[in-house]
């Protein structure tokens, strides 16, 4: 917005400016301070932290908290599974959503209306927690890696975002490819997919963040399977274990870890480990997801 500065701003505008800056500064502090505080405590000596008074920098710097948590095998398994589900879930989710979006963008596709309605309805029907749990059980997906990827494979919202993007591409591209003898799958793979990159970047971010942050599926379906726990689930256990809601706590090894350094420092260090990947990714994709958000919410 290009607003020329008035030669003499009236006092009411100066107060207005002041209020704006004060409010914005406060919001920024309230948002950022908790993260910086957690970061500082995670690098601070755990016995020193108990004294309190750590703000945004460590008082007695140490890496011991991190050394301790990485020595705990559950965390390494969690890290491995979290990365694996994020990569698999994002790639498969992207292929599924874009493939489906491509077929729905084709006005000449006979089954278009049916597929489109069938998919749109999934946004509104929900069987609920327990029928879904029983379904997963009957499909014998309990205690499998597949339960992280398959049930959340397609989201109608994502499909519609990509479709509206494909709708904006010139159809002539598809037509000329067809004249060259390309079939519909080749058109999708060689022409549509490369051109849809900006929309795919947004969806990839949403999918990856969703996968990385998920923990309820681990809790419900894979909680007793040590080899399939995720990082978020491990963090959840640690956080819940020292609050009064201890009935969900199952980790024995973590109790031993916590005996060495204070639970507070363990929590903070794991929190940072879980948060850092997000921090590394989202600022760079900002322009994409803003576009995706505005497009998606108008279309749906």
């Amino acid at each position, binding site marked *: *917005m290009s*607003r020329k500065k008035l030669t003499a701003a009236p006092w*009411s505008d100066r107060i207005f400016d002041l209020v*704006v*800056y004060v409010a*914005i500064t406060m*919001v920024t502090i309230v*948002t*950022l*301070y*908790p993260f910086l*505080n*957690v970061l500082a405590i995670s690098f601070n000596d755990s016995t020193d932290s108990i004294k*309190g008074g750590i703000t945004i920098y460590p008082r007695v710097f140490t890496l011991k908290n991190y050394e301790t948590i990485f020595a705990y095998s559950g965390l390494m398994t969690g890290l491995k599974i979290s990365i694996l589900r994020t990569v698999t879930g994002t790639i498969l989710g992207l292929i*599924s959503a874009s*493939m*489906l979006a*491509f*077929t*729905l963008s*084709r006005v*000449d596709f*006979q*089954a278009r209306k049916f*597929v489109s309605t*069938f*998919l749109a309805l999934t946004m*509104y*029907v*929900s069987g*609920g*927690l*327990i*029928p*879904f*749990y*029983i*379904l997963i059980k009957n499909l014998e997906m309990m205690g499998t890696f597949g339960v992280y990827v*398959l049930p959340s*494979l*397609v989201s109608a919202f994502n499909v519609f975002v990509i479709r509206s993007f494909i*709708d*904006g591409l010139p*159809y002539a591209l598809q037509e000329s490819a067809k004249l060259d003898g390309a*079939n*519909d*799958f080749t058109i999708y793979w060689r022409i549509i997919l490369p051109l849809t990159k900006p929309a795919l970047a947004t969806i990839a971010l949403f999918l990856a963040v969703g996968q990385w*942050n998920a*923990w309820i599926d681990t809790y419900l379906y894979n909680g007793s399977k040590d080899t399939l726990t995720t990082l978020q689930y491990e963090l959840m256990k640690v*956080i*819940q274990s020292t*609050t009064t*809601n201890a*009935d969900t706590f199952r980790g024995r090894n973590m109790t031993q870890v916590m005996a060495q350094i204070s639970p507070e420092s363990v929590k*903070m260090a794991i*929190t940072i480990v*879980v948060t850092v990947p997000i*921090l590394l990714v989202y600022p760079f994709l*900002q322009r994409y997801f803003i576009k995706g958000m*505005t497009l998606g919410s108008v279309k749906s």
Partner: protein
Amino acid sequence: MKAITTKVQPGPKKPKSSFWPTFLQQKYLYMMAIPFVLWAFVFSYLPLWGWTMAFQKYKPGKSFFEQKWVGFQYFRELFQDEQFFNALRNTLAMSIMGLLAGFIIPIIFAVLLNELRLQVLKRFVQTVSYLPHFVSWVVAAGIITKMLSTDNGAVNDLLLSLHIISEPIQFMAKGHLFWGIVTASDVWKETGWNTIIYLAAISGIGPELYEAAKVDGASRLQQVRNITLPGIRTTVVILLIMSIGHLISIGFEKQFLLGNNLVRDYSQTLDLYALNYGLGMGRFSFGTAINIFNSVVSVILLFVANGIFKKITKESII
């Protein structure tokens, strides 16, 4: 709202020939779509079949035909359970508080951001404000619990140093504070993210309106009141109506993570109730009855919201 219109492209023609030849011609399209139709059938529609469990005395391991039918017995049990009404109250309270706060505060924040003249600062604040949206609720709950803790929690430290309180407040152990804590956590986490849509709407307002107002000697506050806010009114109304449709489906994630046994009377939502008293105790039929109640009410709310929406805009969101 600024409608994003996709340019009308010279699209493919509708087929004129009969079904089978076109079917063969489009075999690749079918091959690309059918797996997902099957997927949607299994993971979205099949759970609805599971609703039959609520009318049976469901025992795992038995086939559908071996189950004993009990009619509405579990619904009668449900409507006689005090916990159910407690869970319903908590669900409604937290969703209405969340709706109001999550609707008003992002608008204020968007307007404030829009008034920032330093573009570098604006971009920085925006980037910072998106951060909490991207971290999981597990991380958020951990951070919030830490900030509100009685030993060295930032909030208590601040209040103590300002002499507003003389004893640390046990935020996480006080039931009557729980709804407020959940709402505030939601605001902390999602405000930045929710401003995106309002900022987009604000940027759609023509700069000539502001120029004209300035010529007429309008102050910045008057410009906000008379140009910015009316300019985003349509967006606001649409988003508000849409959120009515999702009023009751707040799930259990935040309540599960932030709650504990001390505040259970205030933290237990319908879904958490289904988790604790249905799944947790192996009472699958009873839990399914809770889920059905929840789903049916949310579908009704969705239709109500859509009805209001249709009346106002003559369009449908469903």
